[in-house]
């Protein structure tokens, strides 16, 4: 039996009733009540509209109007060789593979983990790691005010669970690979990831969303990342969904004292994409680096929404988002920095640069500073432009062809956001994706 969710005829509520019966951990009281709270909230909130300040530039009507199946036996026929293009060359890796939102034991490998580190799929962790889950799951991502988070929380069933005990360095990156092979009818998955690092840990986690075909589906992702004191975590979101897909993801990070995180997002796929990054710098002396690269073409819509919350003194945050927009695509950068009253000596910097490669592409960029402390340093800047003709001429005047000169300038632009990636294999993988993107653009122009 499949469950279909739509706004018509109370479909989400009815769907939930069906879903709840078979959901993993359905019999656990605490989990049941979270899910039920969440569906109640979702039905109160409804999908956001452009009247909502945080959604001014992104209209989710195509999702709200849609009707999506929760696939029951969606594993399809995915083999190890299908994963190849999405793996990082030269990297020994821990990899959890999800097909249409559900964990695949056969395709996953987690052999290379240090002692004490737990990497599991959420459905299984609900059984085996109940205490940690009960303490953390849905404690950070705000399902009371954010509709998509509420929707995810109501319907969460699987995802990545990563627990890193005190003082552990996980050398090899942990890869959460989400593969869609959805069929003809639109479907929905609600991947839910929970990453917990205790004090003095170090790790890199990659969330990766890809599609083996070009169907319509909706990935509604929520990730909670809890970072202990003095820990250092890297998080990567690589979004390569099908051209027709919807992807709404939320990364909610909770940082304890002296922790540092590096969040990198690379948005390339999807028709309607919204990436929310919401770190709370809760302890003193935290560091957050939040970088993003988005490249859109045709009629793609890519929205980067940040809410950087400085809640303690002496924290630094840096945001650098670069966008390249082609075709009739539309981009959004909405960067909120909130400095709470106690967060003195905050040092926050936000930069958003956009290159428009076509006259029909459009970008809305909106910095938003909300500062309640008095001794802080907050700067922001945004630029929108075409390729710098002066730079182009300069390179050409040195003998470099027009096409190569353009490539050099564009690569320099994308490199700004790749530079700070510390996992080389992922950085190279991204560099290749970017090269492919430019090559496809050239092919399209020639034909």
């Amino acid at each position: 039996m499949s469950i279909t969710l739509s706004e018509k005829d109370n479909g989400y509520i009815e769907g939930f009733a069906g879903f709840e019966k078979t959901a993993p951990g359905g019999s656990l009281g605490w989990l049941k009540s979270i899910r039920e709270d969440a569906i109640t909230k979702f039905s109160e909130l409804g999908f956001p509209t452009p009247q909502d300040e945080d959604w001014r530039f992104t209209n989710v009507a195509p999702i709200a109007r849609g009707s999506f199946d929760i696939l029951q036996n969606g594993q399809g026929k995915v083999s190890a060789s299908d994963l190849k293009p999405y793996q990082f060359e030269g990297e020994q890796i821990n990899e959890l593979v999800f097909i249409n939102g559900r964990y695949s034991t056969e395709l996953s490998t987690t052999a290379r983990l240090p002692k004490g580190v737990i990497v599991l799929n959420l459905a299984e962790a609900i059984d085996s790691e109940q205490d940690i889950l009960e303490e953390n799951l849905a404690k950070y991502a705000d399902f009371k005010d954010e509709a998509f988070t509420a929707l995810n929380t109501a319907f969460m069933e699987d995802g990545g669970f990563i627990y890193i005990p005190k003082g552990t360095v996980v050398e090899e990156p942990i890869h959460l690979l989400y593969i869609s092979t959805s069929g003809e009818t639109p479907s929905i998955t609600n991947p839910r990831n929970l990453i917990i690092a205790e004090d003095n840990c170090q790790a890199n986690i990659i969330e990766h969303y890809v599609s083996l075909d070009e169907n319509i589906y909706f990935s509604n992702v929520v990730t909670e990342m809890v970072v202990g004191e003095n820990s250092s975590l890297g998080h990567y979101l690589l979004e390569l969904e099908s051209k027709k897909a919807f992807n709404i993801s939320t990364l909610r990070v909770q940082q304890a004292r002296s922790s540092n995180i590096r969040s990198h997002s690379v948005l390339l796929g999807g028709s309607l994409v919204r990436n929310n990054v919401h770190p709370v710098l809760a302890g003193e002396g935290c560091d957050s680096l939040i970088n993003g690269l988005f490249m859109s073409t045709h009629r793609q819509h890519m929205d980067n929404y940040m809410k950087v919350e400085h809640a303690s003194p002496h924290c630094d945050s840096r945001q650098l988002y670069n966008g390249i927009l082609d075709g009739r695509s539309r981009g959004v950068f909405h960067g909120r920095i909130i400095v709470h009253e106690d967060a003195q000596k905050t040092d926050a910097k936000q930069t958003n640069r956009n290159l428009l490669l076509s006259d029909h592409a459009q970008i809305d960029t909106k910095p938003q500073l909300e500062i309640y402390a008095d001794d802080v340093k907050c700067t922001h800047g945004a630029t929108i432009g075409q390729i710098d003709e002066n730079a182009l001429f300069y390179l050409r005047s040195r003998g470099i062809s027009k096409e190569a000169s353009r490539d050099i300038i564009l690569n320099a632009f994308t490199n700004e956001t790749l530079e700070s990636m510390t996992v080389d294999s992922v950085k190279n993988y991204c560099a290749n994706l970017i090269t492919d993107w430019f090559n496809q653009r050239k092919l399209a122009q020639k034909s």
Partner: protein
Amino acid sequence: MLEIKNLHVNVEDQEILKGLNLKVNKGEVHSIMGPNGSGKSTLAQVLAGRESYKVTEGEIIFEGKDLLELSPEDRACEGIFMAFQYPVEIPGVANTYLLREALNSVRKYRGEEPLKHIEFVKFAKEKMKIMDIGDNLLKRGVNEGFSGGEKKRNEIFQMQILEPKLSILDETDSGLDIDALKVVAGGVNALRSPERAFLIITHYQRLLDYIVPDFVHVLVDGKIVKSGGKELAYELEDRGYGWIEEEKTAANS
């Protein structure tokens, strides 16, 4: 080597060059002086192939070829180099990377193999010494955060690497202190040969003490109104440009 005949150039529908003639032979150094806004940089940019400068009349022949037919990159490959009055900053593109790409593009055009990394480094090191360029300038983004003097030295350094037939220096000496000026002049002189020519745009006779020109031309209002030997530069330094314009009006009336 270079012959400019009756060159008329418009910038945004305004005529800037109004019938300029100039002939440069191999081995010669020509200096062009003239008041602000007279069209000196326009001439340099047109030679380098800037598309926003529209040639409405006249021709430019370089080594027997119609220069106006060539793209900026092909002109560079044919051996034309312009040191920019205002070098462009290109963040994210390492200076060395630009140099190698540029050199290898030029070599490819000439049908030569690209230089191996080791060979390139050796070659560049020699030139770095001449131009007093440190490793750090090489690694940084092109002109990114360079001081005025560093930018100018970097231009001449690029010239050294590309070894052009015709080098056009657009006010490379402006804003340089005497030490930097000597370095720049040293870089130019190191390249001088019977096969190469230089077009040196400057406001100050000072540079010409170090790079001695064969000819000095005065560009006023889009035309060369007077040419002479290096003594003309001294005269201009002493008397300014007013007297030339008076001479011209007198001659015309």
